């Protein structure tokens, strides 16, 4: 404390704090009240008034509610910094919690719950217990929330003192406000607990649906959100729920409406009658549209949600496209979202109307909005084949206005239109070339250069046009340089005359010697080699036909879309990200194992969809896509082996996980026989080691040539398994073999649909075509090390899962010879023994296992020793996984 502080307080004679102290101890009530107000005022502007703690607490014993509330407000703020003094308040708190006035009782527990000081918390339990059973609903509803507060401070205390049961009882309370708060508190506790705390049974469901009608609007939101976690048993129940929820769509509170929409959408998944579904869609449309009449902030949230809804169920708003037309006074964030939805709803039927709108938007003043409108026209052209011509003529009209950024944006989308409809609209190239000199943005420049290169044979002065760009080659951004390089090579291959030949030398020189951009240099070297060794091969590679593109930009992956739809009316649906991507609150639940894997660098960027479709990954196509941002894909074939060094550069920094020693254990099954694949044989199997999943592989070269440059790619699969690093196989001389342990990561590319053990794999090397084979994912490789369940948890979980989740299977040929040996074998694969009992002559074993995302399996094995036949019954929240599970168990038992 330096002299500065005293100066700060020297405005009055005594200083502010001593003066307040005096007033707080005044004998007059009014004076004390005013003093506390002044203290609070000082507190809210950030002044430290903690030194007045004792004096303020002295004012606490008063009948005046106004004053009491002020003191409590002060306590909440400063109790933490003065824990010892806070004890002074405990007596009054406890006394207040028994006050005849219900407001004071409620105020006492509410405030105690906010003071996160252990000593206060100890004294909270008894008053809380009383208040949960208070006669007054205001006290009960306050106490319900207070349980959540206590759980946040000390979860064990809540469980030990039986507050959870008390809270569950409140679900049946006759006051809907109390019910709503109890639901909110239970939902929060459930989120932080690994145990089943708040399971919605059909009984609670009907209770809550009844409470829904009487609740306040906010309570309705709590209840709807809690109920959205309930999975209806069958279509009938789903219809029932929907019928009870539908009236909420008429509510004036948009939070209620959106939560009701979420609920209805979820239940609709189960409803089989198309009539009912159609009817529901009809009912949902008007309220959704009405949300767009609310404040712009709400409109934004509604639009982000509608964006998801129309992706799943386009029919709901198919006829409402007009309501998404932009108003001139909409904030920009609303306009942008409306555009996105207009593109989604555009169809052959309404495209003329839509184009008219887009054209109008493209002449507005806001640059970002104008750009997006131009891009929207292009996306409609790509989406609607029959309207493409009309879209293009609108784009040409816009180019003629010669507004710089409109022209550039138009050229970018026209490049995509060319990719979508090759050899159809090239007649417009001449018009595009007129705007050449106005281009100053990299993406537009790159697009234009791509167009020139791609259609060099139809543009008479293509060489002049490209040459004009070449002068500034060293200064151009990488994106433009790459396109210039490729376009020049194309030009040379198409018109191998003197001019282009000189140009190509300049470019290659520039791109190899003068640059330090490895992507550019690699691509230039590849071209150089190609051109110098085999110009015909170069033609095959560079001028190969490109796959036609489609408009999948802004289209979400189906599995992500489903996850987001389940999260309608939450932040997740606004960000279009799954909740775990942004919710940072630390949870008490143990981390699921997949989170523990290190992030693996994405050095192998070829999309798995490509690898799985034969031919699509033909290397020539990749380097020509102007939109692929910079990095050339390491897939070009290299006829000259030493080029491999160049190719390897991309991967050199990635994690190496090769294992030179042959993995122990039984020999791996053959997945790719040598006979079908020009002498290359692959044996492989998914295994688990030290909590990590590996793909154990052996490569055997039975061909006549050395093989190298091995790469691997996995197609979308149920668990989203993908390579966690590059495949590191040394050069394989004829007659030799190499084994490799490839680390695997989960949840990369999840295939939609029912779970399947199918794993489609593509393997390539530099000498042979791409080989495809099917392998099986053994669920046993996914069983987690932490899958052991406590006995009690096992029992509770077993009971809490509905009987419909129990599935069993007989293994008639298996003979149980030794319980110990079987259990050991299972334990080695993370199936954990929990208990056993005897039932007549049969042994009944209970085990547990867990697969990623924390899905447990509760297992019951029944068999008689020495007698063939074993019955395996399981219960799991994900019964659809059962076939995979049985497959895995069968393999484990028979091994």
């Amino acid at each position, binding site marked *: 404390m330096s002299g500065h502080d005293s100066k700060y307080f020297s405005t009055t004679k005594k200083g502010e704090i001593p003066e307040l102290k005096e007033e707080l101890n005044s004998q007059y009530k009014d004076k004390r009240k005013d003093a506390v107000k002044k203290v609070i005022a000082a507190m*809210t502007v950030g002044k430290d008034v903690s030194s007045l703690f004792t004096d303020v607490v002295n004012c606490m014993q008063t009948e005046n509610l106004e004053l009491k509330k002020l003191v409590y407000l002060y306590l909440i703020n400063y109790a933490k910094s003065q824990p010892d003094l806070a004890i002074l308040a405990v007596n009054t708190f406890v006394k207040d919690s028994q006050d005849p006035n219900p407001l004071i009782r409620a105020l006492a527990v509410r405030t105690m719950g906010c003071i996160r000081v252990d000593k206060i918390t100890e004294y909270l339990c008894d008053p809380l217990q009383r208040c949960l059973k208070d006669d007054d609903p205001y006290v009960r509803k306050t106490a319900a929330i207070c349980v959540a507060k206590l759980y946040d401070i000390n979860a064990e205390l809540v469980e030990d003192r039986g507050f959870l049961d008390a809270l569950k009882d409140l679900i049946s309370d006759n006051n809907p406000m109390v019910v709503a708060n109890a639901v909110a508190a239970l939902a929060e506790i459930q989120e932080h607990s690994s145990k089943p705390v708040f399971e919605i049974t059909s009984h609670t469901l009907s209770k809550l649906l009844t409470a829904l009608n009487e609740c306040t609007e906010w309570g309705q939101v709590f209840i709807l959100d809690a109920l959205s976690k309930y999975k209806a048993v069958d279509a009938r129940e789903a219809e029932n729920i929907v019928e009870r929820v539908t009236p909420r769509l008429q509510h004036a509170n948009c939070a209620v409406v959106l939560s009701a929409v979420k609920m209805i959408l979820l239940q609709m998944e189960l409803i089989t009658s198309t009539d009912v579904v159609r009817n529901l869609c009809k009912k949902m449309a008007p309220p959704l549209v*009405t949300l767009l009449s609310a404040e712009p902030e709400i409109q934004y949230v509604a639009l982000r949600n509608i964006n998801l809804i129309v992706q799943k169920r386009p029919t709901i708003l198919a006829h409402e496209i007009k309501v998404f037309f932009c108003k001139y006074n909409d904030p920009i964030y609303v306009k942008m979202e409306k555009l996105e939805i207009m593109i989604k709803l555009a169809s052959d039927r309404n495209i003329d109307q839509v184009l008219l709108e887009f054209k109008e938007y493209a002449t507005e003043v806001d640059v970002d909005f104008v750009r997006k409108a131009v891009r929207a026209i292009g996306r409609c052209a790509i989406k609607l084949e029959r309207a493409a011509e009309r879209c293009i003529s609108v784009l040409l009209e816009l180019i003629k*206005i010669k507004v710089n950024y409109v022209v550039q944006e138009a050229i970018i989308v026209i490049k995509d239109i060319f990719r979508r409809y090759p050899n159809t609209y090239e007649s417009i190239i001449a018009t595009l070339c007129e705007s050449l000199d106005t281009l100053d943005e990299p993406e537009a420049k790159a697009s234009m250069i791509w167009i020139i290169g791609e259609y060099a044979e139809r543009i008479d002065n293509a060489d002049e046009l490209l040459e004009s760009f070449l002068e500034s080659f060293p200064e151009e951004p990488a994106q433009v340089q790459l396109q210039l390089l490729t376009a020049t090579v194309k030009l040379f291959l198409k018109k191998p005359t003197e001019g282009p030949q000189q140009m190509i030398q300049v470019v290659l020189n520039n791109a190899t010697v003068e640059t330090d951009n490895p992507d550019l240099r690699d691509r230039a070297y590849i071209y150089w080699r190609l051109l110098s060794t085999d110009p015909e091969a170069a033609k095959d590679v560079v001028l190969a036909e490109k796959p036609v593109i489609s408009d999948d930009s802004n289209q979400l992956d189906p599995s992500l879309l489903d996850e987001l739809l389940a999260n309608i009316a939450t932040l997740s649906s606004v960000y279009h990200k799954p909740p775990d991507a942004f919710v940072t609150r630390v949870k008490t639940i143990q981390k699921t194992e997949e989170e523990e894997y290190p992030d693996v660098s994405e050095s192998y960027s070829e999309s798995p969809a490509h690898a799985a479709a034969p031919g699509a990954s033909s290397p020539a196509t990749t380097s020509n896509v102007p939109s692929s941002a910079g990095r050339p894909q390491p897939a070009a074939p290299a006829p000259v082996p030493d080029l491999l060094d160049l190719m390897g550069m991309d991967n050199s920094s990635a994690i190496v996980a090769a294992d030179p020693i042959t993995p122990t254990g039984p020999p791996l099954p053959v997945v790719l026989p040598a006979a079908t694949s020009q002498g290359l044989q692959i044996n492989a199997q998914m295994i688990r080691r030290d909590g990590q999943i590996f793909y154990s592989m052996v490569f055997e070269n039975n061909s006549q040539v050395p093989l190298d440059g091995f790469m691997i790619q996995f197609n979308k699969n149920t668990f989203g398994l993908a390579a966690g690093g590059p495949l590191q196989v040394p050069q394989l001389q004829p007659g030799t073999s190499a084994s490799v342990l490839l680390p695997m990561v989960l949840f990369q590319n999840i295939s939609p649909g029912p779970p399947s053990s199918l794993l489609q794999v593509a393997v390539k090397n530099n000498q042979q075509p791409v080989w495809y084979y099917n392998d099986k994912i053994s669920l046993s490789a996914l069983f987690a090390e932490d899958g052991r369940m406590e006995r009690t948890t096992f029992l509770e979980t077993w009971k809490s899962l509905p009987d419909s989740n129990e599935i069993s299977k007989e293994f008639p040929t298996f003979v149980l010879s030794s319980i110990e040996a079987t259990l050991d074998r299972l334990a080695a694969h993370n199936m954990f023994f929990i208990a056993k009992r005897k039932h007549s002559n049969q042994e009944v074993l209970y085990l547990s296992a867990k697969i990623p995302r924390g899905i447990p399996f509760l297992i019951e094995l029944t068999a008689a020793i020495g007698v063939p036949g074993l019955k395996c019954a399981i219960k799991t929240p994900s019964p659809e996984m059962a076939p995979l599970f049985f497959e895995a168990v069968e393999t484990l038992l028979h091994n």
Partner: protein
Amino acid sequence: MISQFFVLSQRGDNIVFRDYRGDVQKGSAEIFFRKVKFWKEDGKEEAPPVFNLDGVNYFHVKVVGLLFVATTRTNLSPSLALELLQRIARVIKDYLGVLNEESLRKNFVLVYELLDEVIDFGYVQTTSTEVLKSYVFNEPIVVDAARLPTLGPAALFMQGNKRMPGTAVTKSVVANEPGGRKREEIFVDIIEKISVTFSSSGYVLTSEIDGTIQMKSYLTGNPEIRLALNDDLYIGRGSVPHYGYSGSSGAGAVILDDCNFHESVHMDNFDVDRTMSLVPPDGEFPVMNYRITQEFKPPFTVNTLIEEAGSLKAEVILKIRAEFPSSITANTILVEMPLPTYTTRVNFDLERGIVGQNADFKESQKKLEWSIKKIVGGSEHTLRAKLNFSQELHGNITKEAGPVSLTFTIPMYNPSRLQVKYLQIAKKTKTANPYRWVRYVTQANSYVARI
């Protein structure tokens, strides 16, 4: 659940700050303000109402120039948070009479008391002024309303309309009148915001009415109220019986595309005789929101003519015609039209003899602005403007100018023809009949004529 709630002034000053859960850092208000202020480097683009920054989610709405903000770390319902922020603003307005920085600062103790009852541990408890009255004990300190702008639709009635009791809607629902006697009165406002887009040839491309029946009650004893609407009112475009629907504008039924009601409204007789009954809670609240896309007669038609006059000049003629009865007057009409970016100078030729008319060229925004204080129904007004350019025209000037947009307010007029047929107050006391104010007003939302 909500972690913090705060109100910031336009300059970013913390006016109110309440932490409910302690899981978001204290400096969040400043972090938020800096992010919103500099959303994009050029400062042009507005921040969206919901965003995530370093794991904290921020929600905000703007109310009379103040920023109402909530934060959370959980996957909360954003519509809940945003709706709540609006409601908190409304509750505070109900209590303080006027919502602005000064009234908030003067009444911070009351505001904190309100906030403690509205939200507990991040969970919304109630936003009903009526319910809150039984838990809140501080008295508001009323600030002088006359010189302050007010919140929400009430502000519509402040502009040059002598029939409206100007200060009534800015008084607190809890504070007593200076004389100690409370005036018995109830306000029912039918507010319609209309959006119309005209094509370049003058046809209506899209039109829409967003309507609200807003109520504010100062009645003692909370008597029940019956409100009757048009007999020929239909809800849902598919619900109209064919024989009764002529299909054209003019005669025929009022057809609402969709509507929703306040939770206090009882609809038992609505299907029979289009009446609603309710016990209005204290404070301002929407009885009913509705949306209409049925054709209606736009109150103004706009005619724009642009002609090139030489290579560096052009002439614009704007004509607007009031298509409503002459007994009605529109207020504060503003016509705006963006001009080509290379416009350097504009000379105006205004009609003579019209009071409160003004035309201006906003050079920085390259926009023409023409304002007229009042327009009587049936009249027509014309503006001629000569434009000078710094460069030659590319050809199509209509692509680089326009569209023309209008903003206006028309009291005692509503294009939907939705009406409050009667407003019945169940009498409980012997006092004189309470004052009943049923007011209509139409406002332009997005009223645009393309050229």
